[in-house]
């Protein structure tokens, strides 16, 4: 239906427009030479002014702006490159310093350890000596004690034997005879008694 209406109107319009166009003017206004001179004059004037102002004032400025930007960007890139290089060098330096200080720290640690070990060793030696001395002293004491022990034991044996005899028999026994018996026994069985 739309198609039909469109078609009809197209045909109708064709006549209409033809009529209106014919009524408006007798052809293309472009071919009417009435204002040709005026158009040429104003074209030359406006285009001339446009050309002169653009070429003398505006375009050189734009060109300079573009050049400036280009060079500035180039400069910035170069500066960035330089800074990158310097930062890399600094990074290397930093790494070197860290390595150095690590080694130093290791050395210090080693030294300290050696010193401590030495210190400990010397103190240990002194202590060992002291301990040895004490042990020796104690051994001597023990020895003297051991040496003096049989005599004392003999004496105790004599005294206790006399006491025992006195209680058992009720008679006084000569001390000297008992001690002689003890001495005799000790001589006979001393090894069994004292573990020698």
């Amino acid at each position, binding site marked *: 239906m739309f198609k039909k*209406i469109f078609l009809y*109107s197209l045909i109708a319009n064709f006549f209409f427009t033809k009529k209106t166009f014919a009524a408006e003017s007798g052809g293309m206004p472009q071919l*009417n030479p*009435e*204002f040709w001179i005026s*158009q040429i004059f104003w074209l030359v004037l406006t285009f001339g002014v446009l050309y002169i102002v653009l*070429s003398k004032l505006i*375009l050189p400025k734009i060109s300079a702006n*573009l050049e400036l930007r280009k060079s500035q960007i180039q400069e910035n890139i170069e500066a960035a490159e330089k800074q990158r290089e310097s930062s890399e060098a600094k990074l290397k330096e930093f790494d070197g310093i860290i390595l150095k200080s690590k080694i130093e720290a290791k050395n210090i640690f080693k030294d300290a350890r050696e010193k401590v070990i030495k210190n400990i060793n010397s103190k240990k030696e002194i202590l060992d000596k002291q301990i040895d001395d004490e042990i020796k002293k104690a051994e001597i004491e023990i020895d003297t004690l051991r040496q003096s022990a049989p005599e004392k034991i003999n004496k105790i044996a004599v005294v206790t034997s006399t006491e025992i005899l006195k209680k058992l028999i009720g008679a006084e026994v000569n001390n000297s005879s008992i001690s002689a018996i003890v001495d005799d026994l000790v001589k006979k069985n001393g090894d069994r008694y004292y573990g020698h």
Partner: protein
Amino acid sequence: MTQFEVYRIGPEIKVGAFDISFTNASLFMVISSLAILIIFNLGSKKNSILPNKIQLLAELSYSFVSKMISDTAGSKAKPYFSFIFSLFMFVLFCNMFGMIPYTFTVTSHIIVTFILAAFIFIGVTVIGFIKHGFGYLKLFVPGGVPIVLLPLIVVIEIISYLSRPISLSVRLFANMMAGHTMMKVFGGFVVSLGIVGGWLPLSFSVALTGLEILVAFLQAYVFAILTCIYLNDALNLHH
């Protein structure tokens, strides 16, 4: 065809026998030129590393035209950069201002485009003769053509060379006029079909507006690039 009609604005100005009154055509030439100057002046005023929008516009157009010239005419065409830039911008802005309803399209008049094309033609021919002397005439004698065909080829070459200003001016004028006429016709359909059937031509009109904006840019570009090609013939003579 009222949209193409030229009428006087203000009083009649006469210099001798010539009528140079200010007309609506003159008005839009002035408006276009002023618009170009204002935009590019704003765009070149401040130089910041990160350009603002108008500066970016100016600089992009600059590099666009600059690339177009160096691509088609080589580095020798650098002195003519300002001229081609002004030409491109002038035609582009005249075309674009014509796209606004109730305005006048300067480039839809054959006399305007013809004067531009004739100026380019004469300028290019003069440049060619200055650069190469009479050697410029070798342009009409292409290399590697059999002797028998040569007279014919030369005639054809001369005709094609002489028709350059006509083809250049008619191309722009006809494109602009045809587009605007077509839009007017479709606009007329909208009115005559009314609210029932007017939607179809209206949508056509919208689509045509987009197309015409494309054409306005494209014709300015073609005009400028053909100028570059003619300039290339004059500067680097090899056929």
